[in-house]
């Protein structure tokens, strides 16, 4: 699933549609691959090659892909078990500046398209690791987090996280990443980035529109709640 997924999903929907229009009968998979240009002639991501290319990643994301919750600093996301297509898109976005991050930009730039596919494949097949940052959340904060995650708060037009990130927040396809068992510091930083307009590489502004309606307390609550969800297999059986 990951192999095909990354070829299709590293394009925005717009590109996929356009490629279909242009290429017609060539078929979705081939058409989408060609339209990306850079993806032409790529081999499917190879975890073994990815391990070699990921040597520079481990300083922050750790050898087991667990990342790290860094209180008061920039937390590094868990990549282990994340969808390959999602990782691949993020790396391309860091490279192109579509997603801005001073720490990631130089590392993403060092990877060519094949290495990006390989690194994504490498991390995606790792076992999901536990997350940190939600340990001190009170019962009330956890209850609020659970509500936002599973039911949302429609009085503030905040759609539940699970509507898109799936039941349990384990991720849906390559567009909606797994958020369960992700570090609270990272989830929180990303939601704030969307809220403040500093991150906008989500498809169709689906996350941005909702993050803008979340209060700081909402963000803290949902980040803590997801950080405390035990690892479950993403995209597995």
């Amino acid at each position, binding site marked *: 699933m990951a192999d095909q997924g990354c070829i299709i999903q590293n394009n925005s*929907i717009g590109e996929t549609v356009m490629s279909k229009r242009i290429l017609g009968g060539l078929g979705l998979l081939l058409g989408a691959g060609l339209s990306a240009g850079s993806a032409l002639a790529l081999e499917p991501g190879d975890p073994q090659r990815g391990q070699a290319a990921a040597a520079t990643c481990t300083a922050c994301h750790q050898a087991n892909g667990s990342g790290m919750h860094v209180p008061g600093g920039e937390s590094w996301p868990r990549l282990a078990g994340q969808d390959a297509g999602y990782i691949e898109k993020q790396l391309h976005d860091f490279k192109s500046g579509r997603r801005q991050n001073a720490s990631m930009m130089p590392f993403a730039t060092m990877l060519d398209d094949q290495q990006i596919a390989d690194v994504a494949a490498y991390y995606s097949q790792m076992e999901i690791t536990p997350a940190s940052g939600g340990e001190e959340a009170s019962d009330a904060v956890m209850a609020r987090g659970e*509500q936002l995650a599973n039911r*949302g708060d429609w*009085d503030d*037009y905040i759609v539940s996280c699970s509507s*898109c990130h799936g039941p349990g927040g384990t991720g849906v396809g390559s567009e909606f990443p797994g958020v369960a068992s992700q570090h609270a510091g990272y989830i929180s930083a990303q939601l704030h980035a969307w809220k403040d307009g500093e991150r906008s590489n989500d498809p*169709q502004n689906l996350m941005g*529109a909702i993050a803008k309606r979340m209060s700081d307390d909402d963000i803290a609550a949902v980040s803590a709640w997801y950080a405390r969800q035990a690892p479950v297999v993403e*995209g597995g059986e």
Partner: protein
Amino acid sequence: MNISKKSLALAVSGVSVALASGMMVQAADDNAQPQAEGPYQTLVELGYPAPKDNELVHVPPTMADLEEADIHPELKKVIRRGYELFTDTQQLRGKNVFNDMNCSSCHLGEGRQPYSAPIWPAAVTLPDFRGKNQHVNNLEERIAGCFAYSMNGTPPEYGSDDMLALSAYHQWLATGAPMYPDQPIYGRGFPAPDRPEELSYANGKEVFQEQCVICHQEDGSGHYEDGEYVFPATWGDGSNNWGAGIVRTHTAAGFIKNNMPLGQPLSLSDQDAWDVAYYMTQQERPQDPRYAGDVDEVLERFGPTFHKNSSYGQIREEDNHRLADHANWGEKGETVVPWNVGVPRFEDLQD
């Protein structure tokens, strides 16, 4: 609103505001806030119409309110069960549900949300005459209709545990709202924007590709992840059948305009919302359970009350396909027949 909830010492915190009369909730509240900060201000800021002076504005209680409510614990359990059935109707798959939908697929916000066909009005406006089946329906029969059409299934029996639980959840959401209100209800149904002069299938298809396929897929099949429901099917066997209310173009347009893409209500132009609705409702789906082998007969019998607003039996221009001209019942096949369809009532009553 928080203050008014408390000062009224309602057993629960469902709050209805009759804005026109001013003699109900807000008048009883010394701390009544100006209307600009009244209920549903968030929606107004998102671009929804503000409640009009003559409208009944009701804020249904939440599940958190239920926990605090001063009602019998057994009733709480039943309402919770109703909520669970409403938001995870798939647990009735193969028994009452034969497609990929939940009640909450269309009734967003757990059935509480204005402009997303909030379900509490059914609890305070029924029993009433219903045009669709031409007789007086109560709440259970109304819910049963959703199972026969929107869920492409067959309903739980009247009076059964599941039916009672669903009814109780509806009624709970109506807590504090007046029975048989004489005012229009704010945000009821899926109000459609003004219909454009021309509807474009081609534009609807294009907008669907751009705005909808990320969740609903190009083939309209929606998305299951690891066998669990995530995004509902917009057409095909996983979707509602040809007899569901949302096959009517204006109902679909109202749903889409007010609710889609998820989290971005009112973001599509009226034209685009109508065109997507037109495109979506011109795709195939399981047969209307009122069909008995002849599309024209369905049109003759149910055109005036229903299908005049759908594309049922029409020729789709793109490929000259006659819509709904098939005997595909979807997953329920021929063996499961909704027991509530076509059952008359009160035929012997004198005028």
